[in-house]
């Protein structure tokens, strides 16, 4: 069983579309994150949720909306996709009260044409 799984792994779509990426973890962690990795490999935090509550919301356009239906899931919905949204999006988890050690999913590569 993969500890942190993301779907889909690859997503190719047109500008203006709306898309979602899903993340599920079976580690029992309380904290989940979305990170964006750009073409220069820089990893930047987008959002952090602790037990379904939004904790960190970095300077991210409001076209990006995270949703945590329960502690084990954190989804990322993106409206009106733009070329600059092309990147690899990583979900990560950690135990609460820290974070302690981060565990990452395998990433979802989004390409906007």
């Amino acid at each position: 069983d993969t500890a942190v799984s993301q779907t889909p792994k690859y997503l190719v779509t047109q500008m203006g579309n709306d898309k979602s990426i899903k993340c599920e973890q079976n580690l029992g962690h309380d904290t989940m994150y979305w990170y964006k990795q750009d073409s220069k490999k820089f990893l930047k935090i987008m959002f952090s949720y602790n037990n379904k509550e939004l904790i960190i919301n970095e300077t991210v356009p409001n076209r990006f909306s995270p949703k945590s239906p329960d502690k084990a899931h954190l989804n990322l919905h993106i409206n009106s996709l733009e070329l600059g949204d092309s990147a690899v999006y990583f979900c990560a988890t950690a135990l609460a009260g820290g974070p302690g050690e981060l565990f990452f999913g395998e990433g979802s590569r989004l390409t906007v044409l």
Partner: protein
Amino acid sequence: GIQVEQSPPDLILQEGANSTLRCNFSDSVNNLQWFHQNPWGQLINLFYIPSGTKQNGRLSATTVATERYSLLYISSSQTTDSGVYFCAVVNSGGYQKVTFGTGTKLQVIP
């Protein structure tokens, strides 16, 4: 916010060589972690090391939090060590925010 810089940015090694990667951070940290991003893009946990020294096979890491740096040692490098190495820190004053370094891209050639 906290700045995290890694050096060198790029490194080419002959298989079997040793190397040291450095991570400097601009403020006090609670946590520090090293990751290896392999050529397939997976982020693999190497060490969770807020302070002290740890070893795992050919890899070891040392964090001197008071001097705001961490080192990752790779001995007897193998081609499978190729990829990008990141350090990531949590600022003591921040809440659950993990900041990644700029990365070191390592290529090990046979």
